[in-house]
């Protein structure tokens, strides 16, 4: 049962079925399709390539999905779109302070350029456990795959995360700044 549309606000922390991983489907598909992709050099367009593939040759992939915590980066309360952009939220392992002291220190001090610490407030919706928003992993998520809202970040927190997204995506906002 998907979460109610009214809950899908910008800054909502949600549980979602999140099928995307950067390595998928490339790592699964490429080894078995080297010959087919080698044929790409003979075609000028994707359409020509697809027209030359017999129907039985088209690969079908069985996808497994993970229930993940995500952060909604856009307001998705209206019914006008089926997808919403989201950032992945990862849990902080107990041994992270010892294993990744530099990252942990920057997370806690709020100075990491691409990661943002969650779990310090109940409204973060992480059940009181440490977690971080990773702005290096952004993806559209189907609204139907969002099952439950567990938290809500404040406008100030979303502003901090927006700054990290500018950094992660290497956005040029010089025009915006010069006009302000």
């Amino acid at each position, binding site marked *: 049962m998907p979460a109610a549309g009214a809950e899908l606000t910008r800054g909502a922390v949600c549980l979602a079925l999140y099928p995307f991983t950067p390595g998928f489907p490339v790592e699964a598909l490429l080894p078995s*399709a080297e010959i087919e992709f080698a044929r790409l050099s003979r075609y000028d367009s994707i359409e020509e390539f697809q027209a030359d593939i017999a129907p039985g040759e088209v690969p079908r992939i069985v996808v*497994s999905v993970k229930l993940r915590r995500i952060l909604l980066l856009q307001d998705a309360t209206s019914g006008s779109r089926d997808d919403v952009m989201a950032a992945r939220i990862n849990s902080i392992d107990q041994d992270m302070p010892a294993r990744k002291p530099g990252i942990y220190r920057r997370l806690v001090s709020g100075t990491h350029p691409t990661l943002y610490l969650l779990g310090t407030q109940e409204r973060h919706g992480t059940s009181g456990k440490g977690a971080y928003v990773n702005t290096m992993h952004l993806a559209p998520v189907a609204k139907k795959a969002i099952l439950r809202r567990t938290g809500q970040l404040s406008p100030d927190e979303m502003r901090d995360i927006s700054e990290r997204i500018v*950094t992660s995506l290497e956005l040029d*906002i010089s025009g915006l700044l010069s006009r302000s």
Partner: protein
Amino acid sequence: MAETVLSASSVRIPNAGREALARHQPVLVQSHGRAVLYMIHPDDYEAVSGLLERRRRGHPVPVEELLDDEDFDLLREERAGDQDLAQGIVEGWS
């Protein structure tokens, strides 16, 4: 970038901070657990001032220049944690 210059006589830096700066180690000043000030050696500042200026003006900076080995390790570990998803089952083209 226009800098605000203060006289050394108007700033009190504990000896531990001065010694760290002399070794080219950054000094972090915190308030309530949050970073409020970083001090670095002037030579180190010159090495990164161009990058800081680009960011201040809103120009893009390659994100990899802002990450370190721990960050890249973390990204690799996250990816490895999704290995079961990345495997999938391919039917066809095989």
